């Protein structure tokens, strides 16, 4: 069974080292070559390359070392209930009770978050009245918005109590939004200079 030995033979060290060396070198070469392309904002392209090649490096190195790309690891919560069809209600009751047993009354925490939200909003209004530059204000506002969003989602929506993997499931798609706004801002800056009226 030649095929089987093929499948399970470890990859020789020299192949690994060549590939591992190749990727950083390739990255540098690519950045240099793209930078030489005329009229392309070099920094952005370079950032793109780094940003896409680092994951690629991770993937390749994981594959080369024979590891899995994604490991669906054990949850840090030990009380995952076995799933039995038709059992949803019982499961919900159990998990709520479990939650109540293991956590002290959260009302205090809610009050705290309430005050935080209030104060942050007041700070924001204060900043709006201040004479800071537009750019500084924008950065501060975005920062405080994210702070508020984290508190609302984390505490009020109990996201902090969920498993890490679930949190990542919800947070990762936001990457696409960041990419989207990056593109739209680049676009509207260009449009500003090309408007007719």
């Amino acid at each position, binding site marked *: 069974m030649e095929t089987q030995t093929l*499948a399970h033979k470890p990859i020789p060290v020299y192949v690994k080292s060549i590939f591992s060396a190749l990727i950083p070198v390739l990255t540098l070469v690519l950045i240099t070559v793209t930078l030489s392309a005329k009229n392309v904002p070099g920094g952005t392209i370079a950032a793109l390359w780094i940003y896409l090649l680092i994951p690629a490096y991770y993937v390749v190195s994981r*594959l080369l070392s024979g590891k899995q790309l994604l490991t669906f690891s054990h949850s840090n919560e030990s009380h995952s209930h076995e799933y039995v069809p038709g059992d949803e209600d019982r499961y919900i009751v159990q998990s709520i009770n479990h939650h109540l047993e293991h956590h002290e009354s959260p009302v205090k925490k809610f009050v705290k978050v309430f005050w935080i939200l209030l104060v942050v909003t007041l700070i924001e209004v204060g900043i709006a009245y201040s004479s800071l530059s537009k750019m500084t204000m924008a950065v501060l506002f975005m920062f405080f918005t994210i702070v508020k969003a984290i508190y609302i989602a984390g505490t009020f929506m109990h996201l902090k109590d969920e498993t890490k993997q679930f949190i990542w499931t919800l947070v990762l798609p936001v990457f696409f939004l960041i990419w989207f706004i990056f593109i739209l801002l680049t676009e509207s800056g260009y449009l500003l200079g090309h408007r007719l009226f």
Partner: protein
Amino acid sequence: MKNSRLNATLFFVAGIAFLILVFYAHFQNPQWYLPAATSVHGLVTDHLFDITMWITLPVFVITQGLLFLFVFLYPHRDDKKADYYPNNHKLELIWTIVPAIVLTWLIVQGLQTWANIKSPAPADAEVIEVTAEQFAWNFRWSGKDGKFGRNKPELMKASTNPIGIDFDDSLSHDDITSKEIFIPVGKTVLFNIQAKDVIHSFYLPHFRVKMDAVPGMRTNFWMNPTMTSADKKEDVKRTTKGLKEVDERLYGQVSDETYKDANGNVIVEKGGIIKRAERDQNGNLVKSTDVVLRLSKAGIKKIMAYHDFNYVLACAELCGLGHYKMRAAITVVTQQEYDKWMSEQTPDFEYQ
């Protein structure tokens, strides 16, 4: 599975026939392959097209070939078992990394070409303002002063002032407008493109120019034509001239001699274009002008003819009912002819 072998063979034959037909179609009709560009940047993009073709063609042939070959080689037999061959990391890595490297190279080529095409036009470029509307193209030259006068949406009247030139602005007094484009050969031409109503696309297929005309904003594209219309026409004439069968495929051809029927009536003159169909004044399609029919009635089997050729401007973005006939003529002339043409033009201001 009693007809496994039959299906496998069928698949193989079909596959081989497919590949052969692909190549046959190509070599039978070489004129169908990307026609040569007549602009400087067009030659570069065509080159990129060729590179991509040379990379992908072998991939196409090999992968399709393997598909048909495997199907042919391994139809079901009850007495054998397939290989249990679930994975091979090395193989998978190879065909991840090899395409990645090849594509990276293509990307870099593409980016450089793109950046060059999209770089700002040289300062001495001839500027032509293009205004698209449903369903016509309007062109404007800045005239002697090198500056365009204002145009205003509220002055736009399709019949009298399609691009709404404001004649209160003295800069507009020497502006020249036209419904067709004249450009000098070998000189950079910058098109400033805008639209009045909906999105159109300024498309010069032979020059590899395509840019949407977007209402409310100005887009642009610059290019450098390499061949005058007359030269190109002559070039096409030279390469396509020959005896053509008189049958229904004889259209879009220019007759190189005068052909008469038995009564001495002219069927087609020398230099006459044989059209498949024409439109009457109402825009309705009228069937063929009968040239072919009359030629064959007169017993003429073959005529000496060549392809007609004109540069053309078309619209490439769906813009409404007249999208398909939103055309304009574009003529590339020598610098002298261009200057002459320019001097003959009367600025619109003088008609006011």
